């Protein structure tokens, strides 16, 4: 009954206001760019020195000097600009972006984010720009499945994995719900159709309340083309 990754991306995109400056984390969050509603002009920031990131180019127009933070070829839209890394992180750390959308391993009810390392990680540690984005951006939203593959909740009382930043997440968009992080803990704003609050609580590792009139989390069926 849950949303697929493209549908979560679509749902997030609906909430991004016209004229916003937005950084999309590497991986799943990159999908958000494909679902910005018609008529909204959003400026995408890439940590490697780019504002005004456009869609990927056709194969024969790829240039490896023009890439995104995931090191994939992209394009620049009219109005875009290049700058160096230290200026790029000045923007990030200084809070000039309006929003960043980050993947997450775990989110705590205090808004702590863990998205750069797990304890079982066999890869080398790698943080990239995640800590700067999480600590610096005024509005941080997490995009994730509500539970890990083994069914373990990702929304927790406290994170068990190493933190990316403490107390920074404002909202979590999952396949099952839209959950705000508030001073009173997790508050469900929308729940996927057919799921009760109690069922959502079963999948959440912390106290969860519902907004006064929680909405239904829904997204259109999305073809492969858009994703």
């Amino acid at each position, binding site marked *: 009954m849950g949303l697929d990754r493209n549908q979560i991306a679509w749902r997030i995109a609906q909430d991004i206001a016209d004229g916003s400056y937005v950084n999309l984390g590497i991986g799943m969050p990159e999908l958000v760019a494909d679902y910005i509603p018609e008529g909204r002009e959003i400026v995408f920031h890439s940590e490697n020195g780019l504002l005004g990131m456009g869609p990927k180019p056709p194969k024969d127009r790829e240039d490896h000097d023009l890439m995104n933070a995931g090191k994939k070829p992209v394009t620049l839209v009219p109005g875009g600009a*290049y*700058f160096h890394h230290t200026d790029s992180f000045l923007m990030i*750390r200084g809070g000039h972006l309006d929003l960043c959308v980050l993947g997450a391993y775990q989110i705590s009810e205090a808004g702590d984010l863990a998205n750069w390392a797990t304890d079982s990680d066999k890869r080398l540690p790698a943080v990239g720009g995640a800590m700067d984005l999480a600590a610096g951006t005024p509005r941080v939203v997490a995009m994730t499945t509500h539970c890990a593959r083994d069914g373990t909740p990702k929304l927790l009382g406290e994170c068990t994995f190493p933190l990316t930043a403490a107390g920074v997440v404002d909202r979590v968009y999952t396949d099952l719900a839209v959950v705000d992080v508030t001073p009173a803990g997790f508050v469900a704003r929308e729940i996927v159709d057919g799921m009760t609050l109690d069922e959502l609580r079963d999948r959440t590792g912390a106290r969860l309340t519902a907004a006064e009139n929680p909405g239904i989390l829904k997204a259109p069926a999305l073809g492969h083309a858009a994703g």
Partner: protein
Amino acid sequence: MIDKRVTSFEQALAGIEDGSTILVSGFGNAGSPIELLEALVDQGARDLTVVSNNAGEGEFGLAALMRAGRVRKIICSYPITSGSVVVDELHAAGKIELEVAPQGTISERMRAAAAGIGGFYTRTSAGTRLGEGKETREFDGHPHVLERPLKGDVALLRAKTGDRWGNLVYNMTARNFGPTVAMAADLTIAQVDETVDAGELDPEIIVTPGIFVDRVLRVPRRA
């Protein structure tokens, strides 16, 4: 759609409140947003703290704003220029507070505000009258003073060309403080010689990306 271009001084300066801290570009008259500063007299905001390298000259621009009694305090590095009569008079009459700080420190403090830096240590002013009262700490054998970020509520600046997205380029040494003040304020207002559409500025040569700029007003350059 994003369009940061505005068409009147009223639109450009709307919402600037009494008590604001205003960062101002310019080194002498080069890069000074003279017309915006004069329009701020009409806008009416009072009790301002102004951060500017110099403290105005003649009776125009910043000096006009000061003459109108709108500036409570000025933070600058060099208030003396040929013709800086207004600041002299107001200071002698006790009508303006003056804080003098090293030029590079003012500039770096604004950058720190822009960059989310909570504070930084610099050798500049350590062991001098201007470093007195500041936390001092030794690094690599030299005393350094702790400086805190200097953030503006508003930045007023002058550039050469601005586009629909607020991207800016400058003219020669009139660039000076423009890029720094643009980054360091909550509301950044640029006066430019000309405005263009998005995409008309080469993305390789943009000095101030539009993310830092809120409003762009074309003010024809005086002959």
